[in-house]
């Protein structure tokens, strides 16, 4: 290694406080006054660089949810439960939870009710009839949901996704919309609800506590959230929801 290279590396190590006290003293003594002045100035340059590179960055909620969803998926499949069996297990769990819910009074956060919202058991029929995007958008407009679907037909064909229907549902007095898709002959749905609705709050709370294994993605679309629910990976469909405001 050349002397210039050694000196360069020592300079860096001195800047980083990585030299021992004795090494730092020796290095300091080897500097001319001008070199020492430059080193002090370089520390300020380094501080400016680090201030910008180290500026706070928040991991987007959707990115974190996707990562956790992948972990949950892995956790379930690594237990040796086949995806097809999970469907039946999921339905049984929801049914059992609904029975429990009718016996006990559940306070503010009601896991069984939310579980039924976040499952696709209400939509278990996947057919091959496409629903026109324009009709779904008109349906949303008439119900004052300022969200539209766009370019759904441009979803890559290898996913074999299609728009299969839309319906209005209710959760604790609040209306929300479910938009159904078939993806690779599996049902998925996107729940659309106002961002400040109680349901949106419940879903976000549950997601934070990692209680939403069926939720693949939560995206903000204008004043709404779009929640992708289902067992089959279909994150791409949420990207076709746009705000009308």
């Amino acid at each position, binding site marked *: 290694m050349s002397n210039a*290279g050694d*000196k*360069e590396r020592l300079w*860096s190590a001195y800047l980083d406080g990585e030299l021992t006290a004795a090494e730092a003293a020796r290095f300091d003594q080897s500097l*001319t006054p001008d070199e020492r002045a430059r080193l002090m100035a*370089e520390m300020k340059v380094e501080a400016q660089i680090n201030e910008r590179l180290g500026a706070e960055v928040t991991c987007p909620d959707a990115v974190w949810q996707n*990562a956790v969803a992948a972990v949950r998926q892995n956790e379930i499949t690594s237990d040796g439960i086949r995806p097809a069996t999970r469907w039946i297990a999921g339905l049984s769990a929801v049914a059992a939870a609904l029975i429990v819910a009718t016996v006990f009074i559940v306070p503010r956060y009601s896991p069984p009710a939310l579980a039924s919202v976040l499952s696709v058991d209400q939509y278990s029929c996947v057919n091959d009839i496409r629903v026109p995007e324009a009709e779904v958008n008109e349906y949303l407009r008439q119900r004052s949901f300022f969200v539209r679907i766009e370019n759904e037909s441009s979803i890559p064909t290898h996913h074999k996704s299609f728009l299969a229907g839309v319906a209005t549902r209710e959760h604790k007095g609040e209306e929300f919309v479910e938009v159904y898709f078939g993806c690779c002959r599996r049902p998925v749905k996107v729940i659309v609800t106002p961002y400040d609705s109680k349901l949106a709050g419940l879903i976000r709370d549950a997601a934070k506590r990692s209680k939403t294994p069926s939720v693949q993605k939560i995206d903000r679309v204008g004043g709404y959230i779009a929640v992708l629910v289902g067992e089959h990976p279909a994150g791409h469909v949420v990207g076709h929801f746009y705000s009308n405001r």
Partner: protein
Amino acid sequence: MVTISDPEDFVKEVEKHKDEFYRYVLRTVWDSGAAEDVFASGVLAAFENRMKFKSGTNFRAWMYRILTNKCFVANREVIRAFEPLDEDAMTIEDVQSVGEYASVLDDPEAVFEQCGDEVYRAFKSLSTAQRSCLLLRGIERFSYQEIAEILGIPVGTVMTHLSRGRAKLRKELLDYARDIGVVKSKPRLWVKDDEKNLERGEASQ
């Protein structure tokens, strides 16, 4: 003591640091779309290997090792144990010998005020290894030894990445500052050592 064998414990531990992990991936991979995939696959890889983590050891360093490997794959680069000797590689002394750089050293705050965002573009021009080392040292405050373990390279190579990365970053910033007229040419002749018997003061333009 951090334990992550239980899935819930794992998720909670990662969540505590998710912002800094995401920032590291974003700054190393740079493309935000790719960064999201790299972050998710890094978290998943860590989960799949959580049994290999030894309780009581540095969880952050362990995660950064996994994330760094993912970043290198995403950038299609390889972590080399030794950087090839590059006679043309610019050193910080080379940058400092450029006349205009004196203006940067005179008032770094003022210069960065006007072209601070250029740091991001300049940073992007560095190699993945240089970016990783600078971030792990400057932002995440790992020691040289810890960085060497994270990247799986000798400490000497870490030091080389840091010094070359810093020189290149400064050169890029200087070029930009010069292009937009933020710094002016200001020849500055060093006070040489006594052996060479050269002593000049600062020269005005």
